[in-house]
């Protein structure tokens, strides 16, 4: 059997095909097992960096300890949690800004000044959306927060994270972390840190908590 001359181009073609197939499988697998659409990237950069560690982090760890629903005010009222208006930032940043800077603070006054300027120019801040559900899914924050934070005391095993039995009702902050992860410890909110917002996650929890699994509950 003659080997040598003819096998080289064949081997090269085989190699190239293998690399292409492997790459495709890698891309599809990554996309499937990650959260963001085609999840090859992290959360998009925000127009003004917003460290949740500083705002929502606990006071012992140097944060301001603001509750989630103080800014995301619609979370207990409606479908969308909503990102606050610039006006709400000024609740605090009327005081905490470059004008009142004594040089002792670690706050990033330059960035804070941009927020204040936006407010005085009547400009909204175009925050980039991190968690996005597909168009055909309906998610009502209010109903889920109500389930986790109200009602009589009960122990429920949510199929999330370590699947430990949890004592309900939770506080609102804890309820948010059930799906979103511990946002208070994230400098940049990353969707990968929380639950996968895929249909399987929703269904697991709906089955476990005896909620309806009818298609029209979530799909519109």
């Amino acid at each position, binding site marked *: 059997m003659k080997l040598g001359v003819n096998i080289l181009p064949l081997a090269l073609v085989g190699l190239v095909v293998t690399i292409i197939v492997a790459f495709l499988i890698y891309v599809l697998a990554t996309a499937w097992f990650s959260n963001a659409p085609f999840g090859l990237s992290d959360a998009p950069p925000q127009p003004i960096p917003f460290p949740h560690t500083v705002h929502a982090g606990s006071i012992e760890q140097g944060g301001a300890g603001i509750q989630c629903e103080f800014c995301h005010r619609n979370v207990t009222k409606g479908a969308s949690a909503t990102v606050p208006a610039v006006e709400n930032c000024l609740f605090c940043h009327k005081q905490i800004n470059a004008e009142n800077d004594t040089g002792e603070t670690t706050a990033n006054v330059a960035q804070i000044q941009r927020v204040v300027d936006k407010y005085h120019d009547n400009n909204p801040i175009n925050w980039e959306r991190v968690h996005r559900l597909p168009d055909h899914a309906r998610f009502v924050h209010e109903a889920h927060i109500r389930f986790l934070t109200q009602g009589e005391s009960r122990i429920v095993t949510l199929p999330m994270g370590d699947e430990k039995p949890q004592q309900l009702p939770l506080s609102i902050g804890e309820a948010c972390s059930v799906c979103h992860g511990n946002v208070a410890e994230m400098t940049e909110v990353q969707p990968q840190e929380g639950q996968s917002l895929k249909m399987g996650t929703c269904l697991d929890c709906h089955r476990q908590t005896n*909620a309806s699994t009818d*298609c029209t509950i979530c799909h519109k």
Partner: protein
Amino acid sequence: MVSNRIDHKWGMVVDIDKCTGCQACVIACQAENNIPLNTKDTFLQKRVNEWIRIERYWEGEYPNVKARYIPVLCQHCDNAPCEPVCPMYATYHNDQGLNVQVYNRCVGTRYCINNCPYQVRFFNYWHPGWPERLENQLNPDVTVRSRGITEKCTFCVQRLRRAELKVERQSGNRLNDEALEKGNYAPACVHACPTSALTFGDQHDDGAKIRSYFDDVNAHNIHHEHERETRGYRLMEEVNTRPNVIYLKKVDQYPLGKGDGHV
């Protein structure tokens, strides 16, 4: 709580006697459910997409003619002929008596459309498009269906879901006639009807207005139609699809007879 859902069974009563054929329901449905615009071309090709339509019939001979109107929408049949023929399980009956179309599962075989005796299922032959200004009026609670899938009346399930959550949050009561009316949660066609020809309600609710008609029609099937106390009947009752929409017969004060003059 969300977990202990109340079992509703939605139903509608259409009073033909009150219907004037004004088409307000058609327009309301079009606006509520993101239905693509029907143009002259689509009419000529008989590919019109109207989840509720007014069928017009002429009675009598010219010049003694009367126009008759019947609003026809998805009947949400309990024995729905569209359901068993779907190879993708894209249409099914949910626990609230609604015949649900799951757009994501639909692959567009159109078996359901061919098997529907009421012709109330519609196929998207084209990608839906609106003039630029009209895109802002699309309802965010309803999916915009893409080309190649079937769609149909949902009894405005997006309104019912919103209503359920709201009533649950505020009072924990059952979503009854009063709550439906107070919050304008009834389907868009019902809400738009100027003569209140359409009535929507919960068949499991004893106090519902539609209850007496459903009780009567359910008690006397097609073979005992003459025993019914109300004017209720179902469309094509003989095919035994058991619709959740009941029609009330027209009461004609001056019926057309042979040799009658112009009324």
